[in-house]
């Protein structure tokens, strides 16, 4: 028998029982989709971590935030005196509105000593920070984030170095000058870098905020492995209503979230692979019983037992391939629209050829195994008895 004829014959068999075949194909489609998304999310998290997170968020830093009443220079000194702390600096922030061509836009003014910018951003040096202009805010000269100077949808430039920028903070206007344009940063940490205006702290405390308090303090340690110990000590020392976290712990939490999401999807997938396999088993068994006479006829005209086995297996394979293709299309479409914003990154399932292969193969193998039991029974039927069967 030719391979194309197995498939052709299988197709005739399937179209005989459209309802059951379609049901099984839907099961396969669900299994394939869930499996692709589960594996794809895991992989894209791995990639996000190795390409972005792991590189950008310094593994040896601890972040303390306190929006009200804020952290003082005294707090800074206290936290800086902890053992293992190599470096400490404050970051003052305030929400502001800037006027743009299309009206007001909400931004964050962020005051940090330019010397500490690399630590804050997790960059090797400040040179990597700006696209154009200076990387050091000074006086009323500020560096503005990519979302402010660049149109997010078209990428066209909205502001230039040297232009004035008026920020409205708590009822009064502060006239700033753009002295640098930051490169796109890509994702949110505890603040959105791309939506921030970077300002010289001295000017900030003079013109924007009267009180010398910081909304965040960043500690860097000499030993990344001590992060958790120091986090505990910082929690004990920090003023009430402070939030203490480390990028390392954040990534670990994220990893846990992504893993449990993946596990959930994998569970759905395993469940639907299992249910579909049972369904295929049942549907093949019914089909074999209904077609005993036909099997007898096939054997009488010269089909071998192997041919009969392969005819029934082809039906299961065909259902799997039809459902698998549907699942593939479904997940390719779905992955375009699925973005899971996890407060620092946005995950989109990645569809690598390996993942697609595994996702198609797993239900296929399960269905073949399920169909194999009744298919073998069909193959072993005694032709004389099969022909007499009523």
């Amino acid at each position, binding site marked *: 028998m030719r391979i194309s004829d197995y498939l052709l014959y299988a197709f005739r068999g399937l179209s005989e029982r459209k309802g059951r075949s379609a049901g099984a194909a839907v099961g396969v489609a669900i299994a394939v989709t869930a499996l692709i998304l589960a594996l794809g999310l895991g992989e894209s998290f791995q990639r996000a971590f190795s390409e972005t997170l792991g590189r950008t968020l310094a593994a040896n830093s601890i972040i303390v935030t306190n929006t009200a009443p804020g952290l003082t220079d005294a707090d800074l000194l206290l936290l800086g005196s902890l053992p293992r702390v190599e470096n400490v600096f404050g970051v003052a922030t305030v929400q502001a509105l800037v006027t743009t061509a299309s009206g007001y836009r909400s931004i964050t003014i962020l005051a940090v000593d330019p010397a500490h910018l690399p630590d804050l951003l997790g960059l090797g040096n400040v040179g990597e920070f700006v696209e154009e202009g200076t990387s050091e805010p000074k006086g009323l000269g500020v560096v503005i984030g990519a979302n402010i100077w660049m149109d997010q949808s078209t990428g066209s430039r909205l502001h230039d170095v040297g232009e004035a920028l008026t920020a409205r903070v708590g009822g009064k206007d502060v006239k700033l000058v753009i002295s640098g344009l930051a490169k796109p940063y890509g994702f949110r940490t505890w603040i959105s870098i791309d939506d921030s205006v970077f300002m010289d702290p001295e000017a900030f405390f003079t013109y924007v905020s009267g009180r010398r308090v910081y909304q965040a303090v960043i500690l860097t340690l000499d030993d990344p492995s001590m992060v958790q110990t120091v986090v505990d000590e910082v929690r004990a020392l920090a003023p009430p209503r402070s939030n203490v976290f480390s990028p390392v712990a954040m990534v670990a939490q994220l990893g846990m979230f992504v893993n449990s999401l993946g596990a959930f999807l994998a569970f759905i997938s395993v469940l639907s692979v299992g249910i579909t396999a049972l369904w295929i088993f049942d549907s093949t068994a019914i089909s074999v019983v209904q077609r005993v006479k036909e099997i*007898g*006829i096939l054997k009488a*005209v010269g089909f071998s037992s192997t041919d009969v086995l392969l005819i029934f297996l082809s039906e299961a394979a065909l259902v799997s391939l039809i459902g698998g293709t549907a699942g593939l299309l479904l997940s390719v479409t779905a992955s375009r629209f699925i973005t899971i914003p996890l407060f620092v990154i946005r995950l989109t399932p990645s569809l690598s050829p390996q993942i697609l292969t595994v996702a198609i193969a797993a239900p296929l193998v399960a269905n073949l195994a399920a169909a194999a039991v009744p298919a073998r029974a069909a193959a072993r039927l005694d032709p004389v008895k099969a*022909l007499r069967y009523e």
Partner: protein
Amino acid sequence: MSIVEVRDLWREYTIGREKVYALRGVTVEIEKGEFLAVVGPSGSGKSTLLHLIGGLDRPTQGVIKVGNVEVNSLKSDRELSKFRNEYVGFVFQMFHLVPRLTAVENVELPLIARGVEAGERRRAALEALKLVGLQHRASHKPTEMSGGEQQRVAIARAIVTQPKLLLADEPTGNLDSANSKLVMELFKKLIDDMGVTIVMATHNLELLEYCDRAVRLVDGRVAGVYQKGEYGKLFSK
């Protein structure tokens, strides 16, 4: 020259502790181009003999030769199915067409098993349907055809591979006398045109006029062999 040689053929069934003998030492030779009738009471072993000659069943003991193939030595399912496909065409009382396939698709089945390419097997199947006078019914399903037409489709399927041997088990059992006559004339034509050999099991002694010879089985044994002209003796049994 004999095309079929059966020597001391036994087929026993074991049911629980009981042994049932379907055939107890049958010996018969069949000439090429012969139209042989196998007659005898119900349960005498006619169907069993046909199944064994056609490689659809395996003997307990004995020798079956078809052409130069020793059928009783074919052990594997592969060998047996290949033998059935190449040497034999079966025609049954119940027609045994696959209901969801059209007439021409039913006729194509043995060629699919053989791996013949689609265009060629369609051509051969239509040719076989033409031979039985049903080319105009090619795309009809069995349920859309009369019993006589269905049996002619089954005959087309049996001969589409140009087999040496046509084994017909009560081929007219479900047909009226007009259709029975049609089938018998078709068999004669196949012998004349294709040189096929036909072994037919039947209860209907009126069909003997078409046959060259009759073997009578009783209780799994050959109880008599009757040449043309000796059939009268059978009617008195």
